[in-house]
Structures are given as C-alpha cells and as structure tokens.
C-alpha cells in the first residue's frame, strides 16, 4: 500500500474521527461557544497548515524531549551552573521561571478545556496538542529550576510564590483574566495576542540572552519550547483569521479583544524590557531594538496590513507603547531595584560599562533622566545606605504593576488615572489599563491586589519580615542587593576555587 500523503493522513486521522451528534443537540455538547456573540457558520473552514496527526505529533515531540534531556543531563554532569557569564544573570532567569512556569501549567489546563469544548475537530485537535505541549514546557522548566535550585537562591518555592508575591501577581492576573474569559476571547488573548503578536518579544530575546550568557539549560528548554511555539503561533493567527472570515459581526468583537489584549500583554512585557536592558550581564539587543524589530517591523508593517483586509486596525494605545520604547525599561528596572527587598531575586546598580551601553542604546533619554538616578543610588550605596523604597506602592487595578510609568513622553510625571465604580475609587497606570477596566468593571473590581491584601491582614502580618515569611522568601538570601547576596558569595568562592584548580 502506498504511503499516504500528509493531506490524506490529516483528513483520515484528525478530521474524519469526528462525528455529528444526533441523539443530543450539538448545542448541549458544545455549550460554551455561543455566549460571546461570535458567529461560526462552518467549523470545517478551520485550516491547520501543520496538518498534524497524532502519530507525527508524538514522533517529533519525543525527539525534542530526547534532545532536551540529553542537554540537561550534560549540564548537570559538566557543572553547567558555573559556566554563566556572571551569577547576577540568574536573577533574570528567576523572574522568568517564577513567572512563566505556572503560566505554562495554566495554559495546559485551558487548552485541554478548549480541546473538549470547541465545536470543530480541527481546532480541537490543535488545542489538544497545545495542551500537551504546555504540560511538557511546565515539566522542562521545572527540571531547569531543579538544576539551578541546587546552587542559587530564590527558586525553591516558585508555585507558592506565584500565588502570593506582588510582582508575580502581574503574570498571574494577566493569565487568569484570559482563562476566565470565554473560549473565543481566550483564543484571541493567548493564542493570537500573546503567542503570535507579542511572543517574539518574550522568547526570542530571552533565549538569545540565555545563549549569550552561558545559560545552556534555559537556552535548551527555551528553544525546545519555542519549536512548539511556531505551531501555537499558527493556531493563534489561524484562529483570528477564521473568526474574522466566519462573520462580519465578529470583526468589532475581535477588534475590542485585540485592543484589550495588546495592552495587557504589552504591560506584562515591561518586566521583560527591564530584564533585557538591565539584568543580562552580556547584552545583545536593547528592548527598544527588540520592539522595533519584532513589533514595529514584523507586526505593524507585516501583520496589520494583512488584517486590514478584514477591517481590523492597529491596536488602541499603540502610540503610547511606541513612545515608551525609549524609557520603559528604565522605569521598570528602577522599580525592581527599589523593591527587591520584598522580592525573590537580587538586583544591583548597573556597572560603568553597562551605564555606557544604556546611554548608547537610549541616546535621547538615558543620560538626561536615568543616569543621574543611578549616580544618586551609587552615592547612597557607597555611604552604606543602599536605597529601598520603604512603604507600599499604589498598584494599577488592571495590570497590578505599581505606579511607576510616566505620562507619555514626559519622564518626570508619574501617570495615574482614576475611575469611580459602585462608590469606590480605582487607580490605573495608563489610559490603556483604565480603558480595559471601564469595559468590564465587574470583573476587575475582584482583582487580588497584593498591597490591598497586606493592608487587609491577609499576608502574614504588617511588617516586611512577616510578609516575606508568608511569601516563602528567605529574608537576607533570596531578596535585596546582589553584591551582598549569598549567590554572589558562592559564585566568588566557586570561581576562586576554579582558578586555584587551574593554576595548580
């Protein structure tokens, strides 16, 4: 018998395994795909260009896993934790692993839900594969955590921290916003907006940063995960085009979701901007360059002209994101620096070479607005007063980031917006976050805001040591200044030992 073509295999093994229920109304079998106002006339119009079948899926995933675990093993055998450019690098990785690993698991769960509840067999199977992928990513990230957790602080309690710690509430609330939406909004938020529109800003610079800084384990899990990501991107952009093609009435709904999820995702990525510009000892690309390449060039000049065909315009509040590319990373890293006494990572002042790199990468803003700030922080540190912000900040009700962003283009004025709802006042960091709240206030009034929770007495106590204990953060080790941290002390010791060994 001749070998079947990809097209035939796909039709036999994926599409043809579906049947139309006759004893039960399909609306009862698939109860969640009507209430969002999205109209679907023909689920079979859904195209999966990968034409995935269960046999080829398993074959290639097994191969990816074999490669990955071989590298993780050689990492352990070859003392991979010593090959980093500097132990300081690990702090960027801590934020990534603490913030992203639980998102992978949440994604696994939600794609499993889509794999049951979408009406068409094509998208159901694509969602099932993605669900398994996300579980694989969770596992590979946990394996990476376990490698580094043997040698560095801050990674021992990542899943508990995800539910409790203030800066991790940023990715947590982002993702929970998506999974509590309907299935089509979820597809627009995570599959399209996060996995296609913004994914390159998160993964590609981060994995190249890992590669550049000698972090073999992260580079390997990252690229292994990212090879699934191209399938997820295809699901995302395929979903969006499918929804837009099915009915003209879907267009304004999708536009609204796109406006919302662009801004949600973009605010979340401000953490990545700070990591890229400040936390990688060896840098290869600034946030500004990454934004220009991966967003402005690829998405604004590539994707959006394609979407214009369907009547979709570029996302709301995009101009502010473009304006902010010149300074956002500086504002967010300053926030991390001044609040790291309450975080499960260490920060420090950029060194002289790094300050010069920042000046060169941000010629219009850095020397005027941010270098003086670091000079002042250095003077304080030199006089034995390493600066930490004492007190609790006001958080944005939507993105949950402390008020740190400024008015667009005006780097001296903190931007705060407010709104009244049911007799209460709510604060926002930007027009974008306020706009999102005003669309669905009933949803966002329920936000678990870490600062409010501390004030309400739900976080172990009223003092910093009590709250840190409740967070699972070891005070004096996991948090605070990098130069006086146990991570730095161990690193210096390991390096000295290695040098002694080499000179023997």
């Amino acid at each position, binding site marked *: 018998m001749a070998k079947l073509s990809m097209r035939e295999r796909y039709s036999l093994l994926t599409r043809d395994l579906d049947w139309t229920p006759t004893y039960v109304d399909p609306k009862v079998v698939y109860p969640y795909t009507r209430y969002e106002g999205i109209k679907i006339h023909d689920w079979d119009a859904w195209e999966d260009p990968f034409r995935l079948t269960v046999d080829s899926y398993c074959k290639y995933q097994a191969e990816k896993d074999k490669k990955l675990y071989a590298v993780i093993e050689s990492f352990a055998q070859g003392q991979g934790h010593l090959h980093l450019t500097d132990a300081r690098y690990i702090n960027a990785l801590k934020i990534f692993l603490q913030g992203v690993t639980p998102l992978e698991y949440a994604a696994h769960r939600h794609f499993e839900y889509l794999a049951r509840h979408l009406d068409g067999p094509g998208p159901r199977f694509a969602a099932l594969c993605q669900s398994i992928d996300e579980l694989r990513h969770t596992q590979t990230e946990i394996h990476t955590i376990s490698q580094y957790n043997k040698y560095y602080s801050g990674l021992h309690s990542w899943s508990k921290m995800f539910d409790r710690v203030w800066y991790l509430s940023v990715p947590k609330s982002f993702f929970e916003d998506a999974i509590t939406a309907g299935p089509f909004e979820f597809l627009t938020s995570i599959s399209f907006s996060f996995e296609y529109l913004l994914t390159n800003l998160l993964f590609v610079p981060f*994995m190249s940063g890992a590669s*550049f800084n000698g972090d073999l384990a992260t580079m390997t899990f990252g*690229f292994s995960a990212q090879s699934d990501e191209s399938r997820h991107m295809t699901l995302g952009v395929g979903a969006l085009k499918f929804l837009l093609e099915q009915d003209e009435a879907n267009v304004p709904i999708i536009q609204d979701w796109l406006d919302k999820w662009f801004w949600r995702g973009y605010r979340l990525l401000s953490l990545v901007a700070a990591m890229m510009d400040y936390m990688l000892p060896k840098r*290869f690309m600034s946030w500004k360059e990454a934004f220009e390449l991966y967003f402005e060039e690829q998405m604004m000049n590539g994707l959006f002209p394609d979407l214009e065909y369907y009547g979709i315009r570029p996302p709301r509040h995009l101009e502010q994101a473009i304006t902010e590319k010149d300074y956002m990373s500086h504002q967010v890293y300053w926030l991390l620096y001044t609040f790291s006494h309450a975080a499960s990572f260490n920060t420090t002042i950029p060194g002289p070479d790094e300050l010069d790199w920042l000046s060169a990468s941000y010629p219009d803003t850095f020397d005027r607005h941010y270098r003086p700030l670091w000079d002042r922080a250095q003077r304080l540190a030199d006089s034995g007063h390493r600066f930490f912000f004492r007190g609790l900040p006001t958080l944005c009700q939507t993105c949950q980031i402390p008020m740190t962003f400024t008015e667009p283009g005006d780097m001296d004025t903190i931007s705060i917006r407010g709104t009244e709802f049911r007799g209460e006042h709510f604060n926002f960091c930007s027009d974008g976050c306020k706009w999102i709240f005003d669309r669905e206030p009933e949803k966002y009034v329920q936000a678990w805001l870490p600062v409010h929770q501390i004030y309400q007495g739900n976080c172990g106590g009223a003092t910093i040591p009590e709250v840190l204990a409740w967070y699972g953060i070891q005070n004096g080790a996991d948090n605070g200044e990098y130069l006086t941290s146990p991570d730095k002390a161990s690193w210096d010791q390991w390096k000295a030992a290695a040098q002694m060994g080499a000179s023997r």
Partner: protein
Amino acid sequence: MSTAPTTRRVGVDLQDSEDTHALVEAIEADNPDVEVAHMPGLIRVTKAGQLVIRRDSVQERMGRDWETHEFQLNIVSYFGTIAEWDDDKIIIKWEH
C-alpha cells in the same frame, strides 16, 4: 491562497544547529535575495515576498531523507503566515 505574494517581508528564526545550516543553504538556493542574519543561538532568515522551503533541496544538502514535518524541530519563530505545508514544500507569505 492563489494571490500573488505581497512585497512585505516574511521570515523565520531557526535554531543554530548542523541541520539548520543545511536548511539555510537550501533556503538560500531556492529563494534569491534572502537575508541571513546570525544572533546568539539563532539564525534569522528573511525575504521580501515569500519564503519557500523545498524538501528536495533540503534532502540534497542534508544527505538523507527529510520530511517537511521535521521543520518543526528547527523553527523557533516566524512572521508571515504559513500558506502551504505539504509533503514537498512549505511556503510562508502574507495573505493580503
């Protein structure tokens, strides 16, 4: 899918590996004016219009059988849309 390619750029980011080097050679042979850039751990291939990856060309350069499905092992990211992916070739372009 029958529309002529637009002139907007499309591209793929590939893992820097032995297999990828053969793949990039094949892409360069089949796509005139392609731009190849190296980044840490990555090779980025971009082109105006469309990007074609042909099974025959890849097999020739790898010196072994290669299914288009295997492309999944090399690809890290892409921009454009996957207009075709069958046994013989993969085409990435913008649709409209």
